[in-house]
């Protein structure tokens, strides 16, 4: 048994395992186990017991999510499993590693998960720019189908599953699960109101589960090795391993599979090699762009859903972006807000109108045209786009680095206004 289940087959610089290699490394054992006699609800129970939480950022317990899907002969049909592989969060490149490094692992996970919810059809919704991943996934799907892991009567179990790859036309909002479903239906990628949740009325109005790539990739291993093994991989009560990433001006940016609860310090200093020479750490956005800044005082924070939450931020995708002392924090935040303003779907007022206004203020600050009143307005914008005010979490996510950034770097914001310029330029 490995302590790096997700990446054990991944060899940097080498192509991923083909079907034979993957099977030789123990692959498709979970499919055999699940379809070879487990009832769908038993599969769900194992995942529930493992306390696997969604790796897309929200950390919702996966088994609980699955258990909300109607099961049995009276359930609406068809049902769908959708893989959210639309990895577009700024600073996040963890799913890409799994997609390019071990596509069969995902295909196997899809079969097991789809079986657990009795889905007939599964889709992988893939970020359009992940061209290599698309190629590798298509190969893996074709191999799996040829080997009888996909299609009708899989391994003689009587279970049928079709798996389709859909490459996105490219909007960040498609990473939001309901916008993803609309996009998959050929509609505008606008999020849907919940309730109804996708488990009840999802793709084409049918019960649907949308899971992140990393989340799903854990499934075969949990099924084969058991929930207790999974929990034991972690340093904290949030079980399993996690793909952690570091970007920014560090010596060795990258992504690593480490026990859940690895500290910021270990990640930054041991794995990423510390800050580049001459640079000092000023801030950390722990999980993609949509999370609150942490600082030097959080170096010994264990990175998991609960602990980071208690520290006032979110682990999110677990792929941190580092702000150093020679990068303008205002420009840093501006760059993020520019992205979010551009990626707003345009559905709800606070996001559609609030983000561009916010972006224009930050641009003005950077251009030396800021006014002191702008800081109050930025504060109001953070409140205006708080969770619950908007239709979906995009704008509240965008406000996380801004709101925490203003608190943490207020002096930098004020200097831009006082000096009528960006001090870093």
């Amino acid at each position, binding site marked *: 048994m490995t302590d790096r289940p997700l990446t054990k087959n991944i060899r940097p610089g080498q192509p991923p395992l083909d079907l034979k290699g993957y099977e030789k490394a123990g692959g498709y054992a979970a499919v055999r186990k699940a379809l070879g006699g487990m009832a769908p609800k038993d599969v769900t129970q194992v995942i529930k017991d493992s306390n696997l939480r969604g790796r897309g950022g929200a950390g919702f317990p996966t088994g609980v999510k699955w258990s909300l899907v109607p099961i049995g002969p009276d359930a609406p049909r068809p049902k769908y499993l959708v893989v959210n592989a639309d990895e577009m969060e700024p600073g996040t490149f963890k799913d890409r590693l799994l997609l390019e490094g071990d596509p069969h692992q995902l295909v196997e996970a899809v079969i097991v998960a789809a079986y657990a919810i009795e889905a007939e059809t599964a889709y992988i919704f893939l970020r359009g720019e992940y061209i290599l991943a698309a190629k590798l996934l298509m190969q893996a799907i074709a191999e799996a189908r040829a080997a009888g892991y996909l299609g009708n009567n899989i391994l003689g179990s009587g279970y049928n599953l079709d798996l389709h790859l859909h490459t996105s036309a490219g909007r960040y909002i498609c990473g939001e699960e309901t916008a993803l479903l609309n996009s998959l239906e050929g509609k505008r990628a606008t999020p*849907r109101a919940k*309730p109804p949740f996708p488990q*009840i009325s999802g793709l084409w109005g049918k019960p649907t589960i949308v899971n992140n790539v990393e989340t799903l990739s854990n499934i075969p291993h949990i099924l084969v090795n058991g929930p207790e093994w999974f929990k034991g991989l972690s340093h904290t009560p949030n079980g399993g391993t996690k793909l952690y990433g570091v970007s920014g001006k560090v010596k060795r940016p990258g992504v690593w599979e480490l026990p859940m609860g690895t500290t910021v310090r270990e990640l930054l200093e041991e794995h990423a090699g510390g800050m580049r020479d001459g640079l000092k750490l000023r801030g950390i956005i722990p999980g993609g762009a949509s999370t609150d800044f942490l600082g030097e005082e959080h170096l010994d924070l264990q990175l998991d859903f609960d602990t980071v939450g208690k520290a006032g931020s979110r682990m999110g995708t677990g792929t941190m972006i580092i702000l150093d002392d020679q990068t303008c924090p205002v420009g840093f935040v501006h760059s993020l807000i520019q992205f979010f*303003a551009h990626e707003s779907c*345009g559905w709800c*007022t606070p996001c*559609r109108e609030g983000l561009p*206004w916010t972006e224009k203020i930050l641009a003005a600050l950077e251009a030396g045209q800021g006014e002191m009143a702008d800081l109050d307005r930025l504060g109001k914008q953070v409140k205006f786009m708080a969770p619950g005010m908007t*239709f979906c979490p995009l704008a509240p996510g965008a406000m996380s680095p801004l709101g925490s950034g203003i608190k943490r770097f207020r002096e930098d914001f004020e200097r831009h206004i006082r000096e009528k310029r960006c001090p870093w330029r």
Partner: protein
Amino acid sequence: MATIYIDDKPYEVKDGQNLLQACLSLGLNLSYFCWHPALGSVGACRQCAVKQFKDENDKQGRLVMSCMTPASANIRISIGDAEAKEFRQDVIEHLMTNHPHDCPVCDEGGECHLQDMTVMSGHHDREYRFKKRTHINQDLGPFINHEMNRCIQCYRCVRYYRDYAGGRDFNVFASHDNVYFGRHEPGTLESEFSGNLVEVCPTGVFTDKTQKKHYTRRWDLQVAPSICVHCGLGCNTTPGERYGQLRRIRNRYNGEVNGYFLCDRGRYGYEFVNSAQRVKQVVYRRRDDAGVETVEKAVKGDVLRYLARLLADGATAIGIGSPRASVETNFALRALVGPENYFTGMTALETRLVSSMIEILKTGPARTPSLDEIGDADAVLVLGEDVTNVAPMMALRLRQSVRNEPMAVAHKIGIPDWNDAAVRGAVQTKKGPLFIATPAATKLDEIATSTYNAAPDNLARLGYAVANAIDPEAPTGDRVSAEVRQLAETIATALKGAKKPLVIAGASCANECIIQAAANIVWALCKTEHAAALSFTAPECNSVGAALLGGRSLDEAIQTVRDGRADVVIIAENDLYRRAKRADVDALFEHAKHVVVIDHSPTATTAKAEVTLPAAAFPEGDGTFVNNEGRAQRFIQVYVPEGDVQESWRWLRALRVATGKADVAEWATLDLALASVEEAVPALSGVRNCAPPPAFRALGQKVPRQAHRYSGRTAMRANINVSEPKIQEDPDSPLTFSMEGYRGELPASLLPSFWAPGWNSAQALTRFQEEIGGPLRGGDPGVRLIEPAAGSAPAYFGDAPKVFAVRKNDRLAVSLYHIFGSEELSALSPPLAERIPALYAALSPSDAEALEVANGDTVELRLNGAAWRAPVSVRPDLPRGTVGVPAGLAAAEFLSAPAWISVEKVSAT
């Protein structure tokens, strides 16, 4: 009912609503944009935020969108909460960041929901200091003006146009703060219901282009409740006038009839009233012995005396009424000439068809539904009607009815009806049963379960087969093909399986068997204890009223004149050339010594009249129409026309007085005229009650036609006379041509338009409804004159017609209808005339092949000596052996039925 707490006060609200509906139903002020009562909730604009508390001890609460939150029992919310108010103000401030603030030059100004909501929210200081984004506008055709910069992105337009009205050539494009609502390229909007965008849009993105040509602010318009004259459905409208010119038509909500919307014919067909060609003066046409004609304007008194002499004892006068003239006018004509000399103005065939419909509805057990109830049907069969082009608003209702059956999917998983996006997500493209059997393809086919195109007799045969499939005792035709039998079985199963099955038929195919087949189907359903409804379209705005009054047909009138049994012919609001063969009408003019025509618009008939009397068009007078449902509805004078123009019934009354048949006191008011109607014609009993009498007063006051901000009262006529004239008198209604009067709660039939303090746009309607989407307070306008004979079991109509037999040389004419063009009066309106299709003769591919013609080749149609040339349009959906002729556009002989027409290719010379 549930108790909810708003700002700590308990309120009783109806179950199944959302909080926004509940608050508005209670008369509370709460701002909103993306929610629309007919479109439901989507939670996009975030304008309706309120604070929700867990219980009475929760002081913190959290903001929720009232439109997306069920008004469940014991929920506690606050509208006045400081945080909620601030948030609503912030939303407006953000919506306004890119708004051009061009209210002074915006057509929406003064009736703008955005203005109202801005004031309601309290936002006034603008902090945004950056550049506004701008858009390029599109030419959307003759009806609608586009000004995208004003857009606040509420998404109502696209939800209305696509999701509700089924349009496809309009969408939302791009994303973030650059979203754009329009067409993929500039061009005329294709939907027959595009004009509703003007009222759906909460600001001035979509405005009325016809009104723009003679623009007037809402508060400067004089208005009165009116009824649309452009089809038989009787949609309620609010015409607006200034300076004697009709400026626009707006929807007037009637929960039972048109609800929130109008069709484009009804909204934009009004300009005929403003035409320079209008008949506005008494015209006398003299012909000397040499046959030379002189036309002169005559003095009203002289002409009345002249006509009185003509009508003096000894001379026989006959009257020809009209299905587009009011009940009062037709009745007054009948009273003038005597019932034995009165003719309906409809052809024998049309009289028979409409009378047959009324007879079926009166003697049979099936109820005729209101337009609103048509939207509730869950399985529909359309037999012979191109609903979109004949009764457009019925088509808009049918587009909603197909949602009823699949809605069960959403109900099953607990989605409330108002949660629009979720309902549509769950239902997807599923449609309930709708079967369409018509001579040629129709626009509604796109939402139909299945369609069947055949010659009229074969449509009737399908109907008989359906009735037979429901009840084997119902007769069916001989030699019914397996295909038709199978289709009939499918339809019968769907109708039987429905809670509210509906059959729609009408006079469009000019085929009585179709009407009888429709009756057999619903009677078979009723017999097997299904609550089946039967709706007939009516050809014109008062076809049913004219038929209820009764009288002989136009054919008989022509014969009477030909036989020399009439000296004077009086025609009220009827262009005989649109109905009867040219040769026959010519013969009438030849044989009649004197022809008097009363009409408001010039027609081929007025052109030949000896005396033409100028009649009031609908906004210039009062009267009553009876719609296809048998609902009598009053239209009230909007403005007093100039000169001698007056209601046709007033002209006829004047003739009665002039001839000494009545004294001046008779019918001095509309109400007195209606009293006579009710006394003389029991079938019309009830017409008097469709609006309160002229003596009605609310707290001692009349009802003002003018807004309290109506400007220029003392200045409007100052170039003529600086003295302010006396207010014009209105003997016919409790309305007054004034700004002063009662503005509170009124009987709905007297409400000129909807306005409430703080609510200047069409959205003020919520203040007048018993509940959101429900009836107007005190009941929706109109009195139903036709009710079924509950529990009756009439004998089925006899055998079905024989299979349609193709003839070797001649082809059967079938009328093809056009929303723009087939109706007489709207076709006279220039903006609408732009949309009238070019003439054509439609042939099936096999007929075209037989005649060796292709699209665009010219053919000549010949019938009884009349000839008409038109380019060929080859239509694969048209049955073999028929020729499709555009209704209202081709000469009447080719539209009479059954017309077997010789069609020949015209060789290019």
